[in-house]
């Protein structure tokens, strides 16, 4: 049979986001695949050089749409390292709260998005409605559902609103009652097992070769390689949590790890609310003067956080002026989304291509930037 060229994306229901994979298939088997990024390329790294240090706050969340907070966090961490700022204690805890809520939201969503490639839309419908309740929390906290622009260099933008802790705990309790249902519907489903078990493998060698991080790395190597543990930021060294790991990385294992991480995040959220100082400032200015003239001392620094997909980093260069000199973004899904697709998508069936994209955690906006 002849080799046929197929486009998986950019407009294909199996593709999350605006991304494209060109596949050469023989029958149902993919012989060769080429990632084609750039559909979401906006030239962020250039635009950031043209905005004020504070003005970039509006830009950065848009680099990773499903989980914007990590951008804010990593940018803030970088700027703080350059400027030598000590963030107020309370801000650290609020940041952790935001990051963990975001992690819950994005894991819940990715749990539901398994419904896309496998066709179990009920799971998608449930999960996204569930995630929406967390977006309500974000709206209460920061004034926006998706782009919170809440974590700023120097701290967080505003203090928690009244009664917020109570609302968070309520939603967490509700989520905990609903999660087992997701487990029943998705993780125990025989057809999901048929699709995901022993499929879409990620061996440990490939992890090291590509530089895959996050759930992918932990599911394959059995190492608790989580930046929150290995190189703690904020106050992650003061909360107790486990990093779920596995040594056999198929799609189902990765799904299970995400599911267990949700529980860990819920536990972190509870600890954060318990241990957070009641009072105190929530931010300090980056430098004297108003935000139009904030400057950051010259220097180069790389800051990284653990996103839901792995190590997410910014390399920030300042020349001491009111705008960054250069910012380079390391998208967490860069290794698997480009080289991974080129090298390791082949051999799978067309049916698995979108499942591959989904469970490997490929997020197109952060690759394209």
């Amino acid at each position, binding site marked *: 049979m002849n080799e046929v060229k197929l486009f998986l994306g950019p*407009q*294909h229901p199996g593709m999350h986001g605006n991304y494209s994979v060109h596949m050469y298939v023989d029958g149902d088997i993919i012989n060769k695949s080429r990632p084609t990024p750039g559909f979401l390329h906006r030239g962020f790294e*250039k635009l950031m050089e043209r905005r004020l240090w504070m003005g970039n706050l509006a830009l950065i969340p848009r680099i990773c749409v499903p989980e914007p907070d990590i951008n804010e966090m990593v940018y803030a961490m970088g700027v703080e390292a350059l400027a030598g700022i000590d963030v107020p204690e309370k801000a650290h805890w609020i940041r952790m709260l935001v990051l963990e809520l975001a992690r819950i939201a994005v894991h819940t969503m990715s749990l539901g998005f398994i419904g896309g490639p496998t066709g179990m839309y009920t799971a998608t419908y449930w999960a996204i409605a569930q995630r929406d309740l967390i*977006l309500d929390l974000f709206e209460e906290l920061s004034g926006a559902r998706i782009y919170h622009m809440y974590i700023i260099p120097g701290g967080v933008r505003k203090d928690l609103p009244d009664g917020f802790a109570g609302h968070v705990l309520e939603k967490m309790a509700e989520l905990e009652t609903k999660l087992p249902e997701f487990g029943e519907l998705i993780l125990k489903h025989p057809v999901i097992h048929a699709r995901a078990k022993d499929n879409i493998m990620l061996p440990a060698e490939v992890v090291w070769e590509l530089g895959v991080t996050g759930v992918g790395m932990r599911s394959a190597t059995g190492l608790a390689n989580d930046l929150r543990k290995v190189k703690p930021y904020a106050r992650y060294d003061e909360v107790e949590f486990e990093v779920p790991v596995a040594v056999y990385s198929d799609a189902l294992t990765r799904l299970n790890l995400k599911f267990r991480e949700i529980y860990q995040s819920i536990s972190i959220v509870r600890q954060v609310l318990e241990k957070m100082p009641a009072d105190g400032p929530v931010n300090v200015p980056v430098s004297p003067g108003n935000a139009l003239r904030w400057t950051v001392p010259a220097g180069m620094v790389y800051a990284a956080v653990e996103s839901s997909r792995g190590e997410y980093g910014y390399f920030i260069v300042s020349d001491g002026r009111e705008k960054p000199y250069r910012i380079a973004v390391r998208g967490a899904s860069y290794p698997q989304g480009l080289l991974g697709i080129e090298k390791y998508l082949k051999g799978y069936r067309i049916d698995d291509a979108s499942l591959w994209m989904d469970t490997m955690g490929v997020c197109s906006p952060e690759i394209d930037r």
Partner: protein
Amino acid sequence: MVLDEKDNRSPWEKIGDYFSANSVWMKWYCTGCGAIEMPPTMTSRFDMERLGMGPMATPRQADVLLITGYLSTKTLRRVIYSYEQMNSPRYVVGFGSCTVNGGIYYDSYATINRLDMYLPVDLYIAGCMPRPEAIMNGFAKLIDMIKKGEARGWRHYQENYEWYKKNQLDSLGEVIIKDEFHE
């Protein structure tokens, strides 16, 4: 874009528009970051299907093209291609700031500023990005416009094809990329 607002539809067209209005299928294409608010709109919390709307996998089946935010030139080429594959009557909805005037990417070398230079936009929804309620209200408004025969962008596109084509070529150089494999 100046549209002829006079209602000169035949009764058959009015009936047709009634059906069109109550069954608007959208092209499921996430062109930009506004797409992140589409899943909540489609799924259980806001349940777009109540309006008779649903996502469709291919442009042939779709009635409305949602431009969910900024468009890079690379995407715009595919969007125009998709739009031309859609069957009339077809509608375009622009989401958020980026489609109106470039949004936060107004000075980007990779994204366009005004969507209506390249495609006829029937409705814009404000926000960055619009929240699901705004999207739902936008759709309700679109439905109303179709019912009243006001959503006539596709006619405008047919009638001013040359103008659109010229804009597309001016900004994109080439609209249909023959070899996009980069091989």
